[in-house]
C-alpha cells in the first residue's frame, strides 16, 4: 500500500485538526449531546486516472454545507446534528435479483476492495457545486461479487431509517427511508463509486457516513448517503425526490445545462466559496464517459 505523499500532508493535517477539534468540544459535554463520529485515516491510494487539474473545494465548506435532511433541513444542520447519526455496527446488505446476496460489515468491505482516491466534480440540483477527493471503490466490483442475474435491470439504494435518533425523520419531509436508483449500466459504469471517505479520511456523519454513493454525472441528490441496503430489481425504482416532486426530479437527473429545472436554470453553477457562477458542463464534464448510455434518449423527456 502506497502511503499518501508529501503533497497531501498540509491539507491532511489541517483537515484532521479540524475533526479533532470536534472531539475536544465533545469533552465539554454541553456543546454536543454525545460523541460525534470517530475520525480516522483510510488506506487510500490515489487513482492516477482520476486526478484532474481542478481546484479542490475547501474541506471546511464540504463539512459544513450539506443537504442531508435526516439531520435537519438547514445547510448547517447536518454538521450541528452529526451526533444523531449512529454508525456503530453498520452493515450493508446487497440483495434482490442476484445469485449471491450478502450482508457486509464495514471492515469486510475495506478488506475486500482496495480503497482508491478519485477527484470528482459534484453538482447539486440547487445550483452549487464542489470538487472533492472521494475515497472508495467502484460499485461494479461490489455488484459483480453478488452476481446479478439477467433480471437485474436497475439498482435501488436504501438509506438509514432511524427516527429514534434522526429526529428530522419524525416529520414527513420526505418519504423515509431515502431511496434512490440507477439503471444497471449506470451502476456498472467505471465512474460510479461507493465512497467510504473523503480527503483521505472516513466520511464525516454529515457527508453520509459510513458509506455512500457517488455518481458524478448526476445531480447531487442521486448520490445517496448512509446506505444500508442495495437491491437489484427488475422495475425502475421510484426515488424519494421523485415522490416528493415528480415534475421537478426525474429518475435520470443527469447534469444538463440545456434542461431547465422549474426552480433553477441549470446553465450555471456556483462553486462553494465563490460569489460568481460558472458554466455548467454537460453530464458535469463526464460526457466522454457516459454520453453513450443515453445515445437515443430525449433527455428533456427523460430528465
Amino acid at each position, binding site marked *: 500500500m502506497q502511503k499518501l505523499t508529501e503533497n497531501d500532508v498540509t491539507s491532511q493535517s489541517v483537515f484532521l485538526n479540524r475533526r479533532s477539534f470536534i472531539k475536544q468540544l465533545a469533552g465539554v459535554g454541553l456543546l454536543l449531546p454525545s460523541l460525534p463520529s470517530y475520525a480516522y485515516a483510510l488506506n487510500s491510494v490515489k487513482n492516477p486516472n482520476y486526478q484532474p487539474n481542478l481546484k479542490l473545494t*475547501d474541506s471546511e465548506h464540504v463539512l459544513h454545507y450539506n443537504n442531508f435532511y435526516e439531520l435537519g433541513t438547514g445547510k448547517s444542520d447536518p454538521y450541528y446534528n452529526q451526533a444523531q447519526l449512529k454508525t456503530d455496527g453498520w452493515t450493508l446488505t446487497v440483495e434482490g435479483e442476484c445469485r449471491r446476496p450478502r450482508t457486509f460489515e464495514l471492515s469486510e468491505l475495506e478488506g475486500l476492495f482496495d480503497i482508491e482516491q478519485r477527484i470528482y466534480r459534484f453538482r447539486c440540483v440547487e445550483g452549487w457545486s464542489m470538487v472533492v477527493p472521494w475515497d472508495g471503490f467502484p460499485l461494479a466490483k461490489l455488484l459483480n461479487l453478488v452476481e446479478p442475474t439477467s433480471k437485474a435491470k436497475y439498482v435501488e439504494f436504501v438509506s438509514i431509517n432511524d427516527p429514534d435518533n434522526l429526529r428530522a425523520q419524525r416529520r414527513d419531509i420526505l418519504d423515509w427511508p431515502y431511496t434512490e436508483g440507477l439503471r444497471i449500466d449506470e451502476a456498472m459504469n467505471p465512474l460510479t463509486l461507493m465512497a467510504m471517505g473523503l480527503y483521505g479520511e472516513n466520511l464525516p456523519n454529515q457527508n453520509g457516513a459510513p458509506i455512500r454513493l457517488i455518481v458524478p454525472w448526476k445531480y447531487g441528490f442521486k448520490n445517496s448517503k448512509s446506505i444500508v441496503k442495495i437491491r437489484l430489481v427488475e422495475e425502475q425504482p421510484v426515488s424519494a425526490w421523485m415522490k*416528493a*416532486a415528480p415534475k421537478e426530479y426525474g429518475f435520470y437527473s443527469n447534469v444538463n445545462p440545456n434542461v431547465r429545472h422549474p426552480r433553477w436554470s441549470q446553465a450555471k453553477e456556483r462553486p462553494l466559496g465563490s460569489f460568481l457562477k460558472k458554466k455548467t458542463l454537460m453530464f458535469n464534464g463526464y460526457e466522454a464517459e457516459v454520453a453513450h448510455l443515453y445515445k437515443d434518449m430525449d433527455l428533456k423527456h427523460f430528465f
Partner: protein
Amino acid sequence: MTRTMPIFLFSLLCSLPFLLLAWNLVTDNLGANPVEALEHTTGDWTVYFLLLCLSVTPIQRYLKPKTSGWILPTHLIRRLLGLSAFAYGLLHLMTYWIFDMGTAWDETLLDLAERPFILIGFIAFLLLIPLVITSTQNWQKRLKGRWQTLHKSIYLITFLGILHYALLVKADLLQPIIYMGMFGILMLLRIHTLSSKR
C-alpha cells in the same frame, strides 16, 4: 426636534441586521455559499419587518389603547418598520439581480416568466414602492382617506412575500407555515376594527 435622537437610534436598531450581515460578509463569515446566505438573511428580515410593522396596531389596541406611542408615536414606528422592510427587500432583490442573474436583463425576464415564485416576490416588491413614496405626512394630508386604503395593501404585500418563500422551499414548509401563522394572527386581531365603523 426632540425626536431626532429617538428616530436615529430606532433606525440604527433596524439597521443592525444589515450591519451584522455586512460584517460577516467582509470577514468571510457567511459560510460555503455566501450569496445564498445574503439572499436568505435579507429575505428573512424583510418578512420580520413586515410582520413587526403589522404588529404595531394590534399591540397598541390590545395592550395600551390610550397610548399614542412609546417614545416615538406609533405612526412613526410603523413608518420606520415599513421602510426597513423595503430596505431589506431592496437588498434581497439586488443580491438576486447582481449575483444570480449577473445583471443580465434577458436572463432576469426569462426567470420571471418561468418561475412563479420569483414573479410573486417581484410583484410584492413593486407594490411596496408606492407605499414608500407616500410614507410622509405630506402625502398623508394630500391623499386623506385614500392614504389609508392605499397603505392597506401592506396586507397583500406581506401575504405575497410569505407565499414567495413558501413556493421556493424544496420540501420543508415549516418556516413559511410559521410566518403564515403569525400573519394570520395579526390579521385576525384586526377583524373587529375592519368591521367596525370608524
